[in-house]
């Protein structure tokens, strides 16, 4: 045996020994106190932080919607001025789409991923902390402006020329543009982290055909982000240049206003799939638990997820059917938008078959997931309708499209996310959520949602345009709008029940135990909440449903969770090959550090400098960014990054 630290054969031992657990606890628990809170890189703490922050934005965005739903309940209402209405509905869109829908999915993935793949943290824990801080900073950046009356006021998609300086002189659009670039950095760093984690950190034996479904959705979405986010960051940067440096990207005559729409939708259509595929992954993950059988069509659903995402990059022009593009281009994109129904429908049929062939347990999670399948189908049908060119020409810019986007975002994002909260809350807190309140929660939300948003389809078919701050009476829209407003309040009450349930259950919920749902995946083999090191020994899995082995036909118990690789020479993880998941390296995980937070403050200072044209602040922010990055990457002995002394 060589004494070199460059390589080692990891020991194999029983994971239940108390002295091993105490030793790992010391290595992984991190600092306490306020500094420890700021410097943590633990995926479980950061994941919960993400989820709480995203839910806070959900509440804020929801309250905004309720205010303008009161405005729209009756014709000729003047509760809000047109300018206030514009800012409110634009900020509502920005909040829900960028600050809630994706970050909440990221939060769940940050928390759950290492646990379901048998790892101790994400691949890049410091980058994970940075992603969170940048997300928070971007949210504060954009909301600080909204609170002083300078929120975005041109819809979440922010079309030029309304967004250009000539028509929009205030700082509103500069804030939105810079805030979105800042948020884009957070999304990108998160995306890189997930993709590398997926490829390198799955525990030994978790080959590509045994990956839990929840990771398929998230990794597909984040792989897409790597290619999609630069389009919107660039579009917003070019807009900022047009407004502040006199460039001519989007100016009429010199530049081309449609360049904005192309760049924006090249990002934003993939983004629609980015904010639903991880949620669909949650359903595919937990639906089998509540139907007591494996998912029907694992490979078809996984491949369908990827196919949907790939096709999702080729349909952006269907948002631009009314802009006068050449017919050949529109025909192509119309066909692509219709074809994308096929891989999406694969998942629906798989879920229906899973429920059909299984023995459903009507827990709250199941209700939310079954409700989701119904809403997903409605959202798919209305999407399929607008994919058709002549129908879209009739419906574009009406409330029909508003109905469609809300069936997509609430039906395919909010419902699965709340279902997933009921599912993983016991793992996160050690306590079960209340099932009786859960049923009230589901039915109030489900009925309120359909009462509120289904009539919007009809309002749209009757020709009510979207984005208007009020309307004349006698158009045939009055009672439909009143029902929509009533439904949205019922829906909001349902969401309130959810938060009440969270608070009550957190305080005095029933103890959950390790595996309250008798679920098959690895996170349920460790305690609730999990210890800082997640697993005392690295599990080795032998099937897709490790904890159900021996109970399904033709399977025997081969997965090992009790004894396995002991990695206790510092914070260590095992790295495996991307396809076969054979162990090929012992990785060193960084300790808690304040560098991500300092880097985030430096980058944010740079953006504030750009916004206010305080160039000294911008330059200081850049310099601090550079110094933080040098500090971050300084080769460290404890991370196995430096040469050992020659004569050791």
């Amino acid at each position, binding site marked *: 045996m060589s004494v070199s*630290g*460059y390589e080692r054969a990891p020991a194999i031992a029983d994971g239940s020994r108390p002295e091993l657990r105490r030793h790992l606890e010391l290595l992984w628990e991190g600092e306490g106190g306020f500094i420890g809170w700021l410097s943590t890189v633990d995926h479980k703490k950061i994941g919960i932080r993400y989820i709480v922050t995203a839910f806070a934005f959900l509440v804020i965005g929801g309250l905004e919607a309720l205010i303008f739903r009161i405005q729209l309940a009756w014709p000729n209402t003047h509760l809000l001025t047109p300018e206030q209405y514009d800012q409110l509905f634009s900020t509502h869109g920005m909040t829900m789409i960028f600050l809630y829908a994706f970050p909440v999915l990221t939060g769940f993935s940050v928390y759950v991923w290492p646990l379901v793949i048998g790892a101790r943290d994400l*691949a890049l824990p410091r980058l994970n902390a940075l992603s969170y801080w940048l997300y928070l900073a971007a949210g504060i950046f954009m909301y600080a402006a909204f609170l002083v009356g300078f929120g975005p006021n041109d819809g979440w998609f922010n079309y030029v020329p309304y967004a250009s300086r000539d028509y929009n002189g205030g700082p509103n659009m500069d804030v939105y543009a810079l805030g979105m670039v800042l948020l884009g950095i957070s999304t990108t760093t998160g995306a890189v982290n997930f993709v590398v984690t997926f490829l390198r950190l799955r525990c030994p034996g978790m080959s590509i055909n045994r990956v839990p479904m929840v990771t398929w959705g998230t990794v597909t979405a984040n792989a897409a982000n790597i290619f999609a986010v630069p389009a919107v960051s660039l579009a917003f940067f070019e807009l900022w240049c047009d407004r502040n440096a006199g460039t001519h990207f989007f100016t009429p005559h*010199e530049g081309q206003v449609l360049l904005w729409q192309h*760049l924006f939708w090249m990002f934003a259509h993939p983004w629609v799939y980015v904010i639903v595929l991880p949620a669909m992954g949650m359903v595919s993950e937990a639906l089998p638990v509540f139907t007591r059988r494996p998912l029907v069509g694992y490979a078809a659903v996984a491949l369908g997820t990827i196919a949907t995402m790939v096709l999702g990059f080729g349909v952006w022009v269907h948002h631009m059917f009314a802009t006068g593009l050449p017919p050949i281009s529109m025909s192509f994109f119309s066909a692509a938008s219709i074809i994308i129904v096929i891989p999406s429908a694969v998942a629906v049929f798989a879920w229906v078959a899973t429920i059909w062939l299984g023995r459903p347990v009507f827990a709250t999670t199941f209700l939310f997931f079954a409700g989701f399948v119904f809403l997903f189908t409605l959202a798919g049908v209305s999407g399929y309708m607008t994919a058709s060119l002549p129908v879209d020409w009739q419906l574009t810019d009406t409330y029909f499209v508003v109905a469609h986007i809300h069936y997509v975002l609430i039906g395919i994002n909010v419902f699965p996310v709340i279902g997933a909260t009921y599912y993983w809350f016991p793992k996160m807190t050690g306590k079960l959520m209340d099932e009786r309140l859960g049923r009230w929660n589901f039915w109030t939300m489900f009925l309120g949602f359909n009462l509120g948003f289904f009539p919007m389809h009809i309002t749209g078919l009757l020709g009510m345009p979207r984005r208007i701050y009020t309307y004349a009476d006698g158009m045939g829209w009055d009672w439909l709008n009143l029902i929509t407003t009533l439904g949205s309040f019922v829906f909001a009450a349902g969401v309130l029940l959810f938060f009440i349930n969270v608070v009550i259950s957190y305080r005095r919920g029933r103890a959950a135990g390790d595996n309250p749902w008798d679920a098959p995946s690895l996170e349920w083999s460790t305690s609730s909440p999990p210890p800082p090191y997640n697993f005392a020994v690295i599990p080795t899995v032998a099937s897709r449903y490790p904890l159900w082995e021996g109970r399904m036909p033709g399977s025997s118990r081969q997965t090992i969770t009790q004894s396995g690789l002991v990695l206790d020479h510092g914070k260590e993880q095992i790295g495996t090959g991307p396809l076969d998941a054979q162990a090929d390296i012992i990785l060193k995980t960084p300790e808690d550090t304040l560098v991500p937070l300092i880097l985030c403050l430096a980058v944010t200072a740079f953006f504030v400098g750009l916004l206010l044209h305080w160039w000294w602040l911008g330059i200081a922010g850049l310099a601090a960014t550079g110094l933080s990055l040098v500090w971050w990457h300084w080769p460290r002995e404890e*991370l196995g990054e430096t040469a050992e002394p020659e004569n050791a």
Partner: protein
Amino acid sequence: MPERVQLQTRLPVGAADTRSLGWWAMIFVVFTEAALFAYLLFSYYYLAVVVPHTPGTFPLGGPLAVKLAGPNTAILLISSAFVAWAQTGIERGNKWRLVGGLGAGALLGTIFLVIQSFEWGNQKFDIPSSAYSSLYYVVTGFHMAHVLVGVLILMALTVWAAMGYFNRFRYAHIHIGALYWHFVDAVWIAIFFTFYLTPRLGLMS
């Protein structure tokens, strides 16, 4: 057949070259950066093709001169060769070849930036002159910012190399930083082709 953990397998520990997580992360950083430049060039070609231009406005004042940019391209490519020479050096444990190659790469990168700034100063148009001038300054500006970051990375690596942090077992930092530098050089070829060569094909004026 039951799957068992292999008992006697010796595994590398820590940041081991292309098995290190930083290497994998940098691959995807390069992908996202490449996408960014693809969208920048999309902006260029879209505005070049879709908007009707009066002759001589796109490119503004005729095709860009290659008198400076041509040799500058060569300088950038040679810097990549020096960095590659440094990389193979440390794989053989040659510390001074590493320091020399990285230092030469950083120096040539700096010369590229100086020459490119000189070209900026000598252009007859400003940022707001036209859509073309906006594209020219923003796209080459983006690239210069990337070269600047790359030069700073190479400088940090040079210092760390001189401090003896790396040997023939530990050089993941070098390969990760070098990957970024090679990308910055490669993407320049696409920009050079787009801005300096395609207008000479006579398709757009």
